[in-house]
C-alpha cells in the first residue's frame, strides 16, 4: 500500500518548528485539584492545539506510527489539525483507534508514539497524546451520533466477553464489518478498568459513556450482569445461543497480596477494592451513593507499588482528605512503571514518594485495625528476570511508619472463571489464556482472546492492539470458515 501523500499545510520551515516550545497542557492547580475528583488536565483549546501541531517535523518514516501498537497515522492526523480540519483528524485516528478520547488521556505516550518522536531527541517530543485528546474531544462535541452509518449485515454473530479496551476495540471493529456484536460484561457498567480502576480525575466516566454510546449507535449490543463461565458458558454461547465466534477479553482482575502478616487487618485494601469503591461505586460521593469508604480525613495512608494503579489509589486517597499520603515502592523511581505524567502530577499534589522501601508487616492497634507498617529500606542488586535491578533489603534498616490505611497495588493475576469453565481452552502456567500473538486464536475453534487475560496486566493501548488483531482474525475466520 502506498502511503497517501497529504500536502503539508504547515507554513513553518523545519528550523522554525524546532523553536516552538511544547505547548503546556492547561491543568487544575495542584493545591485545588488535590481536593476534588474533577479532571486534572483541562485540554488544549483549539489555538494551542494548532500551535502544538505546527511542531511536527513530518518525518518521511515516522517512528511515532511504528511505535504505536495500533499504528495511528500520527503525521497525517497532525497535518489535518494544522489545516484546521479537526473532524478529519478525528476520522483519521479512528481508522486505527476506536477509543481516541481514552488513549489520548491514559496511554504511556513516552513509551510509544512520543518515545519515537524525532523532536524528542532534539528538544521535546510532540504532544501527540494531547493532540489526540484534543481532536477526540472536539469530535465528541461536534459529531451527531445519529448520523453514524451501520454496515450491511453479514448475519454472523460474535460474542465479546468483557468490556475493557480489548473487548470494546474488537466490538467496534467487528460491527463495522457488519457482524452482529454482543458484549457480555460481569459488572453493571461497561468499560473494564476504565470505569472501575482509573479515577475520574484522570479519565472522566462521561468519556467512556460517550464512547459506548457511539458504539451502540454503530450497532453494538451490550449486556451487563453476565459473568461468563457462571451465568452462561462459552460453550453455551457457541452451541445454544448461535454465536459464530467468541472473543475473550476478561482482563487480569485478581488482586495480589504480599502474604505478609497483618494483611487481613481492617484498613488494608487491595487497590482494586479501594478504586472500585471509589470509581465504580462512587464512594467519594457517600452518602449520596450508598457505598461507604473508611474515613480518610487527616489519616496516614500509603500505597504499596509504583504503577499507575498505585498512583491512582494514593491520589484518590489524597482527594478524600488523607493527611499524609505515601507511595512505598521497593525499587527506585527510574524503575517505576507508572506514566511519567502521573508521577509528575502526584508529586505536585504533595504525595510523599518513599522509594526503595517495602513493608514487611502490618501492625494492629489491638482492635483489628491497622496502626502502622513495619518497613525496610532496599538497595538495588543485580538485574532480575524482568531486566530491572533486583531490590534487596538492607539489614538493620527497619522502621515503623504509622498508618491507618494501606493499599496493596503490587499487581494482579488472571481471573480463572472463564478458563476453568471452558474445556479445552489452553492456559499458561500462571493461568493466562494461550493465544497466538498475531491471530489471537486460542486452542478452541472459534474462540479468540486478547488483552490482559493473555499478556498479564499491561496497558490500554496494548489491549486495544490485541482487540484489533482479534477482530481482523475473527473477520477472516467468519468469511472463510477456515481455522
Amino acid at each position, binding site marked *: 500500500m502506498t502511503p497517501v501523500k497529504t500536502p503539508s499545510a504547515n507554513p513553518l520551515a523545519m528550523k522554525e518548528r524546532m523553536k516552538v516550545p511544547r505547548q503546556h497542557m492547561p491543568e487544575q492547580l495542584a493545591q485545588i485539584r488535590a481536593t476534588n475528583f474533577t479532571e486534572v488536565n483541562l485540554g488544549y483549546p483549539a489555538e494551542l492545539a494548532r500551535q502544538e501541531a505546527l511542531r511536527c517535523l513530518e518525518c518521511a518514516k515516522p517512528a511515532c506510527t511504528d511505535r504505536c501498537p495500533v499504528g495511528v497515522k500520527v503525521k497525517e492526523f497532525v497535518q489535518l489539525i494544522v489545516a484546521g480540519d479537526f473532524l478529519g483528524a478525528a476520522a483519521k485516528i479512528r481508522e486505527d483507534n476506536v477509543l481516541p478520547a481514552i488513549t489520548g488521556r491514559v496511554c504511556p505516550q513516552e513509551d510509544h508514539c512520543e518515545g519515537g518522536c524525532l523532536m524528542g531527541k532534539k528538544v521535546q517530543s510532540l504532544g501527540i497524546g494531547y493532540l489526540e485528546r484534543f481532536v477526540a474531544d472536539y469530535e465528541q462535541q461536534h459529531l451527531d451520533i445519529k448520523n453514524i452509518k451501520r454496515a450491511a449485515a453479514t448475519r454472523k454473530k460474535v460474542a465479546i466477553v468483557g468490556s475493557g479496551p480489548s473487548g470494546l476495540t474488537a466490538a467496534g471493529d467487528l460491527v463495522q464489518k457488519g457482524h452482529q456484536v454482543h458484549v457480555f460484561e460481569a*459488572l453493571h457498567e461497561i468499560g473494564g478498568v476504565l470505569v472501575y480502576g482509573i479515577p475520574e480525575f484522570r479519565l472522566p466516566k462521561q468519556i467512556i459513556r460517550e464512547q459506548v454510546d457511539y458504539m451502540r449507535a454503530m450497532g453494538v449490543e451490550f449486556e451487563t*450482569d453476565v459473568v461468563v463461565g457462571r*451465568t452462561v458458558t462459552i460453550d453455551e454461547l457457541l452451541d445454544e445461543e448461535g454465536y459464530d465466534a467468541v472473543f475473550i477479553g476478561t482482563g487480569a482482575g485478581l488482586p495480589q497480596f504480599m502474604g505478609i502478616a497483618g494483611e487481613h487487618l481492617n484498613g488494608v485494601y487491595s487497590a482494586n477494592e479501594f478504586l472500585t469503591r471509589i470509581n465504580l461505586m462512587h464512594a467519594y460521593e457517600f452518602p449520596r451513593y450508598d457505598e461507604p469508604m473508611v*474515613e480518610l480525613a487527616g489519616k496516614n495512608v500509603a500505597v504499596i507499588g509504583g504503577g499507575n494503579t498505585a498512583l491512582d489509589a494514593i491520589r484518590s486517597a489524597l482527594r478524600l482528605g488523607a493527611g499524609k499520603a505515601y507511595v512505598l515502592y521497593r525499587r527506585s523511581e527510574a524503575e517505576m512503571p507508572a506514566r511519567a505524567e502521573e508521577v509528575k502530577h502526584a508529586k505536585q499534589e504533595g504525595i510523599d514518594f518513599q522509594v526503595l522501601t517495602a513493608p514487611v508487616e502490618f501492625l494492629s492497634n489491638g482492635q483489628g485495625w491497622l496502626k502502622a507498617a513495619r518497613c525496610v529500606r532496599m538497595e538495588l542488586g543485580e538485574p532480575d528476570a524482568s531486566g530491572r535491578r533486583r531490590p534487596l533489603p538492607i539489614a538493620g534498616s527497619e522502621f515503623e511508619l504509622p498508618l491507618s490505611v494501606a493499599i496493596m497495588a503490587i499487581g494482579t493475576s488472571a481471573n480463572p472463571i472463564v478458563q476453568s469453565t471452558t474445556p479445552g481452552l489452553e492456559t499458561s502456567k500462571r493461568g493466562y489464556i494461550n493465544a497466538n500473538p498475531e491471530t489471537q486464536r486460542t486452542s478452541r475453534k472459534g474462540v479468540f482472546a486478547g488483552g490482559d487475560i493473555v499478556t498479564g496486566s499491561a496497558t490500554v493501548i496494548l489491549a486495544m492492539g490485541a482487540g484489533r488483531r482479534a477482530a481482523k482474525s475473527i473477520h477472516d475466520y467468519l468469511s472463510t470458515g477456515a481455522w
Partner: protein
Amino acid sequence: MFKIVHAAFIAPGIKRFVVEAPRVARKQKPGQFVILRLYEQGERIPLTIERSDPERGTINIVVQSAGKTTHLLNSFETGDRILDVVGPLGKPSEIQNFGTVVVMGGGVGTAMAYPTAAALKKAGNRVIAIVGARNKELVILEREMGEVSDTLMITTDDGSYAEKGFVTDKLRQLIQNGTRIDLVLAVGPIPMMKAVADVTRKEHIHTVVSLNPIMIDGTGMCGGCRVLIDSKSEFACVDGPEFDAHRVNFEVLVQRNAMYREAERRSMAEFQQEIEAKRQTVRQELEQLCGMNGSRRDAGATVEGRRDAGAAVECRPDVDATVGGLR
C-alpha cells in the same frame, strides 16, 4: 432490569422475592448466590438463592432487613424492578451421599441452608435439619425444611415455639445420643456458625459453613471478601462461600464485617429520616430507566429478545400490580 414477580413477608422483617432472572435461574446450584444493586446510587450486596425455577426463569431470594439496602429492598413489592442481579456466583455446595448430614439454619440462614439440604436429601443422605430462630415468629421455612429432611428439630432462643435453646444444644444432644454424623452444614449468624464449629471440632465431624463477608463485585476482582482460612487469605466469592468450619478464622470475619459499621449507621439513620421520599424517588428512577430504550432491558426480555437489544424492552407501568407498599 429484573422484575419482581412476587414479594411477600414470610416473617417480621423477612421477605421472600421471586425475581425474573432467566439466565441465573437456568444455572443456579445449591449454595450459590447473586449480587444485586437496587438502583443507580445503590451498593452491591450478596444474597443466597433459596431456589430457582428454570422453566419460569425465576429465582427466589429471602431478605432480612438489616441495613439500608435490605430495608429498601424489603419495601419493594410485586411488580417492582431491581436494577442489577448478577449470578449465580460462588462455588456450589458439594453434593454427594455422605451418609448422615445435619443441616443447621440460624434465622434467615435457614433459607440459605434449604437448597443444600434438599440436594443432599436427593443425593440419598439421611438429613437431620435443625432450625433455630430468636422467637416463634422468626422461624422460617419450617414446612420446606420438613419436606427435605428425615428429622426436623426447631429451637427458639426464648422458648416461644418448639424447644427453648440454641441449635447447638440439639447438635450436642445428637452427638451425646451416639448419632453417627458424617457432615454438618451450618448457615446463620457468625456466632452461631462459630459455636457449631466449636462443638464439632472436638468430635472431628467434618463441618461446612457458608460465610457472608462484605463483597463488591463477586467475581474475585476486588478481594474485599477475603477471609482467613488456616491463616491464608481466600476470597469468599470465588473460593467459597462455603468453607471448612474448622479452618475459618471467625474473629477476623467479625472484625472485617465491622469495617463500615459507622458509615452503615449513618446511611441507615439518614435513610430512616427520609424513608418515604427515598422509596418514591428510587421507584420513579427505575420506572424511567425502564422506559429508556437500549441501555437497560428487563431480564425477561433478555432470553427471547437478545437479538434486538434495544427494541426488546418489556416495560409496562404495572400500575395495578401492587396494593399499598411503595405506590
